[in-house]
């Protein structure tokens, strides 16, 4: 089951780390980085059901 309630305890810290990662990158480099990050996270989740649900949630 996809968790859709708050689950990251330092939400602000995570958010700024996510943005910092893109510092100084061109638009294309940023897109590439995002793609890699999605793949890394997806593999960590692993569960196909959860992944499908996450995709539906993002599309919603």
């Amino acid at each position, binding site marked *: 089951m996809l968790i859709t309630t708050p689950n990251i305890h330092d939400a602000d810290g995570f958010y700024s780390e996510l943005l910092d990662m893109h510092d100084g990158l061109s638009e294309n480099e940023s*897109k*590439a980085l995002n*793609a*890699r990050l*999605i*793949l*890394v996270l997806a*593999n960590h989740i692993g569960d196909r059901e959860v992944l499908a649900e996450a995709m539906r949630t993002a599309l919603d």
Partner: protein
Amino acid sequence: MAKIFEIPLYPYTRNPDQDSPKTNRHPVIIVGAGPVGLAAAIDLAQQDIPVVVVDDNDRVSFGSRAICFAKRPLEILDRLGCGEPMVEKGVTWNIGKVFFDDRQTYEFNLLAEDGHKRPAFINLQQYYFEAYLMDRVRVLEAEGKPIEIRGKNKVVSIENNDDHVSLQIDTPDGVYQVEAEWLISCDGAGSPVRQMLGLDFVGRVFEDNFLIADVVMDADFPTERWFWFNPPFNRDQSALLHKQPDGVWRIDLQLGWDIDKAEEKKPENVIRRLKQMLGDEISFDLEWVSIYTFQCRRMEKFRHNRVLFAGDAAHQVSPFGARGANSGIQDSDNLCWKLKLVLDGIAPETLLDTYDDERIYGADENILNSSRSTDFITPKSAVSRQFRDAVLHLAEKHEFARPMVNSGRLSVPCIYSESRLNTPDSTKLPTSTRPGAPAVDAPVNEGWLLDQLNGDFKLLFVGINGESPSVAGIHLDVIEVQPGQNPVFEDRYLGDEDTAIYLIRPDQHIAARWTSYDETEIRNAILRAIGQE
């Protein structure tokens, strides 16, 4: 020296149908003497079904075309009596390397598990493949088997009637008329038979061009499959290098969509491209060059009354994954025993509809895999390109990304899990040998299991004895295996159980299995497997 594909191997000669005052009717005519038509002809003739093959050509495939042949077709060829020369001549390989930009991303080893007679793959030029099939045809002819190959016989019109097919065939001596109870159409992706019958062939065209070159060179590259994504010598495109026998190398260079084909095919331009890839020091000769685009498509049905389509005529895939000829051989394997039972009056004609079910399932699996490979190799949008490159980037350091790298998912055998010919399985025997799967090879009784599955229905008794029930018209052989002597075999056929009985079809696919003996159940499973239920 003339290449084998330049020599007429089945030159035109006059045949009795041309001089007959009335129109002759044959049990089976096969259109097309490519890999699939020849395999079907051999299969039927071995079972004493008279078969005539007509082809508008008189020699083997021009240039190599298919080069990768997978384990399952090799096993089928063993049953057809010609696997050995192919494996002997072919190059066996296991290692594949993937490069991205100027670096090696990773390396994989296809090495199949031990305990199989045949390797995962061999590379062999299609012209040799066809030539060995022709050798086998000649041996069968010499043994008096009812097989005839007619070169320079081109089908020019066809009529699909209720109980026969009627054909007009053009030859150097003019047109003659002939009939067949059944016609197998193996006339390739452009299938004139399909077109003359006005049948559909729908699917997806991929907007891309590939330059394919077979190059003869004395190079000491290892016997491995090398695949490049976006290499310096072919920017933004892909490339493939693969070894064939006789010092011939297959080189595939993606060119993109907007190109001038005539210009690209000029030897000087091909040579310039190859030098960029191979460097200036290596000298080579071009054996065959072609530019192709590809398609993934299939017919809606493979059986149209008395006409049965097989191979590229029925379905077409992109070459990545080597699923074309490999799946066509599986079509023929699936069809021939069914056709024999129908011709012999033992099974109902509807058994042939299961050819449709099972092989359409196979074709869809191949089309799905080959479309996915193609989407990875030639991304269709900026975002698919970003993900593709992200996968390749990560794969260099991180194992998790490697299964997503798709430079072709190489052909694996088709498992007809849902086939109505199967008897539902209620055992806890290993899943790899479940009903619908092709029998998995294993060393047994001092030989190989698959060598003993030679074209009839078989009952495999493992650690258990029983009578083989008799079913009218079905020749049923029994193979007995005592447990405790063949650990690899037991792993595959017993798992945690002590006894097992398998019912295996003539095409070596498993139809039913049990852990104890019940004659009625076995009889019912046989009837079901021949479409009588």
